[in-house]
């Protein structure tokens, strides 16, 4: 495995999301180097990037890029006028945007531990997306508004993990300001190493927890 791959993964996960980037890496490395390459990728980057570790482990167990499932979350959007999304996961966001009509306004929290090129992210997602800042996202709150966060590890039945951005928006004050707080699990395979970059959150924090794969 070449040096500098860590930086490539960081860039990819900053703009695509950790799960989307992990599946892409596993798929491309497998295509050029086979499962041996995927195992080496896991050895090289797995400890630092737990979602990649989980995806590589799943890949070596026979899992392949799963289709995105939206049927769980879509019913919760009925009656909503505003949806605030926390986190970036390009595969799931793209699919969601295809399924949601123009009557639902979509805001994305512009906050990340990494440094994505937000202008490029905006160009990819289209003009219907509004970026919201941590200081002002509550202006979107209301009885017809919901928060949606990508979550990881719901599969394991134990801990549930979300990004640090979610921890910053899901305080006790915020929880009462939105009609629903939806967790959308995008990993579908269990996490097995310490979930660096992610934060354990209680399942009951979400009003709905749905599978994305």
């Amino acid at each position, binding site marked *: 495995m*070449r*040096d*500098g*791959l*860590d*930086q*490539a993964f*960081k*860039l*990819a996960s900053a*703009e*695509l999301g950790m799960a*989307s*980037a992990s599946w*892409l*890496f596993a*798929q*491309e*490395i497998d*295509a*050029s*180097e086979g499962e041996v*390459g995927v195992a080496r990728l896991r050895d090289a980057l797995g400890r630092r990037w737990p979602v990649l570790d989980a995806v590589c482990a799943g890949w070596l167990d026979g899992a392949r890029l799963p289709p995105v499932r939206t049927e769980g979350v879509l019913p919760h959007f009925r009656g909503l006028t505003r949806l605030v999304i926390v986190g970036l996961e*390009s595969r799931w966001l*793209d699919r969601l945007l295809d399924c949601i009509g123009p009557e639902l306004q979509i805001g994305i929290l512009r906050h990340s531990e990494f*440094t994505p*090129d937000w202008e*490029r992210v905006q*160009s*990819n*997602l*289209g003009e219907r997306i509004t970026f919201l800042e941590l200081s002002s996202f509550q202006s979107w709150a209301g009885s017809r508004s919901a928060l949606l966060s990508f979550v990881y590890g719901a599969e394991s039945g134990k801990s549930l993990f979300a990004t640090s951005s979610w921890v910053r928006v899901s305080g006790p004050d915020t929880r009462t300001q939105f009609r629903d707080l939806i967790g959308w699990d995008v990993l579908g395979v269990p996490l097995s190493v310490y979930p660096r970059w992610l934060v354990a959150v209680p399942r009951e924090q979400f009003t709905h927890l749905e599978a994305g794969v």
Partner: protein
Amino acid sequence: MSAVQLAFAGLLVSVILLQAILPAYRLLIVLAGAALSCGASAYLGLSSVGQLFREVPWEVLVILVALGLYAQNLADSRLFGLASVRITRAVKARPTGLLLLFALGTYFVSGVVNNLTALLVILPVLLSVFALVGVTRRFATWTLGVMLVACNLGGAATPIGDFPAVLLLGSGVMTFGQYVVAAAPPTFFALICLLLLVIVLVRPARDVRVTPANQRLTLAILSQIYRGVRVRWTLLGPGLLALALMLAGWLLVPASWGFTPELVCWIGAGVALLARPRHAEQLLRTKVDVEASLFLLAFFLMVGAVRGTGFFAQAAGAITQLPVSPGLQVMAFLVLAALLTGLFSAGPSMAALLEVAEALARDQPAEPIFVGLALSVCAGSSLFLTAATSGPLTQALVERAKLDDVQGNRIQFGFVNFLPVGLVSFCLILSVNLVRTWWVLSKA
């Protein structure tokens, strides 16, 4: 020289030096210097303040503002960013291919838009590719350095690419067509020589390990992070139409019609902007380069005050009295211009040196002197990272990207890193310039 002449010239040089030493206060320094020059000139009865303002080449400022807005509008169309992605795909992320095509791409883009805009649209893609491919510090430094020089060369290739050439166009000493015919071939030749020298002798890509898996992964990620980015034809279409109109205006419209270069530029930028009025209004309110305009206005006022003392005429006279042939006098002027630009940066140097060039051109063929001056300023701009505004911008973009090399060390692009590229480029561009000028002068 009289004491008054030396005092005004000394003030100009001090301001140029001080703004170079304290770039964080450069606008404050040059505006204060301009006020001091105007005040002293009026007090001593050399020129009134009104007279100094009347002598400011406003048409140059009109061109700069209009072209700046036009370039921003074109950049917002996303054309250049997507073209950079295409380049990466075309060379399959191979390092030497990246160096070659990004340098050529930068040259052509900066011939149409100003250098800062060219770098702002191209560099983010290249830095992302560096992060994905995994490059060495040496490769990154040489590639970024060559791109900066390509940017300067592209800017000098056309009269709309960079300030020195805009000044020539705006001041009316050369037409658009004359300048392109004279300046584009030597700048392109210098770029090809530089690329050959770097690729064949320096070989910065020799330590970058690229495997088919690397290439595949890089291209796959790049495709994903640009998956939904599309050209905004509502901006690009009118932008290209406006460019065609401007080129036609500069090249084909007879001077007797009164459509001066700045008017053509003003109308052209207007055509490009009017297609999207809301976007245009936003650009006009937020993207007019007030800093550059005030900076140059202040220098024009200071240069006007120095001119009022007769200093430039005497400086030109001193050059023409050198005990060498007229051709060698021009050569000496061009070398001096390149060195002064390296030290003081392009804008101030060109504003001051054009006065001397105009005086020299009274007795000798004008074209080789003016084009030679533009190329000397280009060489000087390429000497140090601080000699052109695009240098600090590149440095800032690289720092912001927090790019690591393959060993995990942070990649820096500062004054010292750029110096080898700068020295090589300076010598090369200046040599091409001197040979070309000598050849043209000997034919005349």
